[in-house]
């Protein structure tokens, strides 16, 4: 996903002389080409995310489109007040990019896991929030951000769902993509974990349960129409995210649907529940441990539908 992002940047930067790319001394080996080709537009500010965000605001206020780039919580939570006051309040044209969304950096440990960022960033006024599920979405969001004005957050995952794009599909920011049609239940996922939802849907299909799969790449603003349709047309909604369930994708769906007076037949938020991802393991292992993998999703659906769960692999 990171390579898709950098690839889109390399492709688009010649048309965007106003772009400035700031990194907090991260991106070993992946930013070399950008730095070599666009040295005036590349700035390693050092391990200083508060300054990076303030400098980004200053550059943006002077007319630049600015990307800030670092791992997980560093360009987000570490400098949250700079994002709030300096970037969002001034509607500064800064795109905050986190690599290692969710538990991407598995065994590195919780310090490098971004598991509350969706919740926190989406609460900021004027901030748009994107969490692509695959390389195509990552590249398309990047292209969109180069022409978009104002603050935005892009969460890049190390994992990616298998390619979901259809021939001729046009990326529409703010719209939920329906990856697979189905009427029994809706699996609404954000980020690479959508791949687990697809696997779960395959298992459930063998049981005669047809899932609608939604990729919520734009977490904010949330596409209420597609969600409302899912609530009324399918047997229930399961939200899936590598983020705290509080106020993340699941929280956003609940808030939005309830306020609109649309109630799915059931609703389950799958994500981290009041816990840090403190167990050591790969992203895949951690998804299993925290009951966020395909098996856990399928079990959740079967339980909700009141179907005796056969033994799932």
């Amino acid at each position: 996903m990171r390579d898709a992002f950098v690839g889109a940047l390399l492709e688009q930067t010649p048309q965007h002389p106003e772009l400035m790319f700031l990194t907090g001394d991260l991106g070993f080996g992946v930013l070399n080409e950008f730095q070599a080709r666009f040295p005036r537009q590349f700035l390693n500010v050092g391990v200083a995310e508060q300054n990076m965000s303030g400098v980004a605001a200053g550059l943006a206020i002077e007319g630049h489109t600015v990307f800030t780039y670092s791992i997980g919580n560093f360009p987000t939570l570490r400098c949250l007040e700079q994002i709030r006051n300096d970037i969002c309040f001034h509607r500064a044209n800064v795109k905050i990019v986190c690599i290692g969304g969710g538990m991407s950096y598995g065994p590195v440990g919780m310090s490098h896991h971004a598991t509350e960022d969706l919740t926190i960033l989406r609460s900021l006024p004027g901030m748009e929030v994107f969490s692509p599920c695959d390389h195509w979405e990552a590249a398309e969001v990047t292209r969109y951000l180069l022409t978009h004005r104002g603050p935005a957050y892009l969460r890049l995952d190390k994992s990616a769902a298998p390619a979901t794009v259809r021939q001729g599909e046009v990326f529409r920011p703010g719209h939920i993509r329906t990856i697979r049609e189905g009427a029994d239940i809706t699996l609404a996922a954000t980020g690479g974990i959508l791949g687990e939802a697809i696997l779960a849907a395959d298992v459930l299909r063998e049981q005669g349960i047809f899932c609608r799969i939604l990729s919520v790449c734009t977490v904010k603003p949330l596409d209420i129409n597609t969600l409302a349709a899912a609530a009324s047309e399918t047997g229930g909604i399961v939200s899936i995210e590598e983020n705290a369930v509080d106020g993340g994708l699941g929280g956003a769906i609940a808030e939005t649907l309830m306020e609109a007076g649309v109630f799915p037949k059931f609703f389950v938020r799958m994500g981290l529940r009041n816990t840090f991802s403190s167990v050591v393991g790969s992203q895949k292992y951690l998804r299993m441990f925290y009951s966020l993998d395909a098996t856990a999703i399928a079990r959740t659906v079967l339980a909700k539908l009141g179907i005796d769960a056969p033994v799932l692999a």
Partner: protein
Amino acid sequence: MNPTQELAKRIRVHALQMTSKGGGSHIGAIFSCADILAALYDGVLKVDPTKTNDPGRDRFVLSKGHAGAGLYAALAEQGFFPVEKLLTHYQNGSELCGHASHEVPGIEVSTGALGHGLPMAAGMAYAGRLKSSSHRVFCLLSDGECDEGSTWEAALFAAHHGLSNLVVIVDYNRIQGLAPVSEVVELEPFADKWTAFRWSVREENGHDSEALHRCFRDIPFEVGKPSCLIAHTTKGKGVSFMENTVLWHYRIPQGDEFVAALAELEERS
């Protein structure tokens, strides 16, 4: 009185009236930097109230946003907006909130949370250099916000990039929110710190308008380095009972104290 001193006096009188009427704090911190604001807006900053978006204007960032009333007063006096508007400070529905707001004509960025101004100013200075523009970026810091790590992150950054179009002025009144700086977190040797961070440093009496103007004429103090002026000041300067007291960081000037303070300011010639 020279024009800068005249302006400083009007800033102090306005700020006293504004904080009194609105019930606002920080009068001591405003008085402390009133002469610096007056010098900047009396000919140092190349700004024009009729062209607030002129790309070539000097930028000013009041990082010590709690002195917002002082900045509003300076801007109104220089014609950025009507002086009458000053008395809406702190009032319901006004643009003039306690801390500096970019909604107000002439103000580049909103501040208030300490340690935010210098990173933004550094970004603005970096942008100016990319454009090969000759304008400068001035940033007024409090001594208290030199406790903030982000201030020093930006200090490292600005020196590393040799941002000679960036000027820091530290309002060094040696009193912060709850106590003297020396009791809270000592900053000394203060000038040495900025020098060690590879800034070109000068120290002046921050209430001496002629010294301030002399100093500002020499920007950048050294080629290839950002400039830092440590302005030695007195918190509450201009009203005897407010000077050098922790109390007047937060105390609101009202009643007899307001009358006495106004009388002292008006007396000063």
